[in-house]
């Protein structure tokens, strides 16, 4: 399946991917509005890891054998059989963090305000991951595998 891959060689750690991830999942699909007006502004579903000079952006790998889906105690975490995208049905999620316990990439963010697991959905709504689109250094690519 198509996934977001990081090119650590060209990442400068600017964290714009985080900014645009927040924007993409905010009610307002606009950076300024998302930051200024969204009282329930989402957390980024990406982690930019840094240990200078190395940095890269890491998000859900939409694993074939997704451990989070198997471990989820409510069935909220599901892998779409057609697209392969792993998403959390936040109506079912109870915030038990069992998925956080098993995701080997540390890719699930705890939204403790809403008590739900938050993770990369590849910007399912817009069709193209916002992090990839807005990375100024092309350090993120959206493709079928490197």
């Amino acid at each position, binding site marked *: 399946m198509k996934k977001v891959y990081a090119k650590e060689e060209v990442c400068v750690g600017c964290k714009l991917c985080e900014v645009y991830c927040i924007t993409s999942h905010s009610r307002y699909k606009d950076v300024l509005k998302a930051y200024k007006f969204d009282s329930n502004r989402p957390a980024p579903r990406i982690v930019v890891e840094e240990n200078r000079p190395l940095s890269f952006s*890491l998000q859900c790998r939409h694993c074939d054998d997704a451990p989070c889906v198997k471990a989820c105690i409510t069935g909220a975490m599901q892998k779409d059989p057609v697209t392969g995208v792993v998403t959390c049905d936040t109506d079912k999620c109870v915030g*038990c*963090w069992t998925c956080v316990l098993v995701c*080997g990439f*540390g890719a699930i963010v*705890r939204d403790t305000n809403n008590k739900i697991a938050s993770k990369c959905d590849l910007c399912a709504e817009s069709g193209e991951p916002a992090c990839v689109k807005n990375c100024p250094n092309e350090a993120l690519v959206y493709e079928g595998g490197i």
Partner: protein
Amino acid sequence: MRIKKNVMLENGDFVSYDKLLIATGGKPFVPPINGLEKKNIQTFIKLDEAKSLKSSVKPNSKVVIVGGGLIGFKAAEGLHELGADVTIVELADRILSTILDNESASIVTKRLTGDGIKIKLNTTVDEIIGDDYIKEVHLKNGETFPADHLIFAIGVTPNTDVVKGTSIKVNRGILVDKNMKTNLDDVYAAGDVAEGYDMLIDSNRVVPIWPSAYMQGETAGLNMVGIENATKGTFPMNSIGYKDTYIITAGIINPPDSSYDVITKADYDKNSYKKIVLKGNNVVGFILINDVDRAGIYTGLIRDRIDVSPFKDHLMKDDFGYVYFPKDLRKSKMLDLEVH
């Protein structure tokens, strides 16, 4: 001669099978003590039990929870939210003794006692006193105190009733191989009823948690339809919490001997605690209190038996992550270069 493969139902009907899966789960353990027949005494396993408790417990009801394990702990949280006066009675020297060490248990204990939950350690109930309804509880340590509800939460045992009197081998649970097959061909078992392979202790044991049940069920199912699949084995892992206190633990958390290395870090201002247990160059267990983000990275290190020697010194860092992995390991995982 072809063996007839049937199960007999309670009503006497027979159902034939090609492959059989036993997934009868666990049943709550209730100790044989005096006074069990009194009213308002129950276990805490099924939704109906939780519902009936919710409707009968009133603010200031005096509820005694026997067992400070995972189930008792969650029961305490819910009952406290209902306004009940909660007392946990625990036989071990700390609550959540299977998933916490002394230090982490004391952090969690403080959170509970801060809410007014009483915790009595190193003892258990001796007798339940009352007429029709429970009125008092008498403990082994000599204490007696008033109670109007009592919950047994001292664990589940594999529900092996259904195989009693058969030649299916049972130890604590139904013994299964790495394909989840019992000693009988075509008969499989999975979940809380099964005693399957634990990769960390390199032998079989009952691990009554959801992730294990799922993975065992999946393995059993695949093999039952003819797709050969052997489990790498499971190991204990739990994510549990009390209100704003989060606990994630996995694997061996209280090493049995000195052949293990232990690293710990505590920040008492933040009520956070981190412990990692290593055997040689492998992580084999961890405890995280409150600072639980990205816990799964450690679980992954255990699951994939990663040699952590190149980044051992970074394991405790607040920002520990893939950035500290050797480049080839990081790339193989992040870029899907692994052979699946």
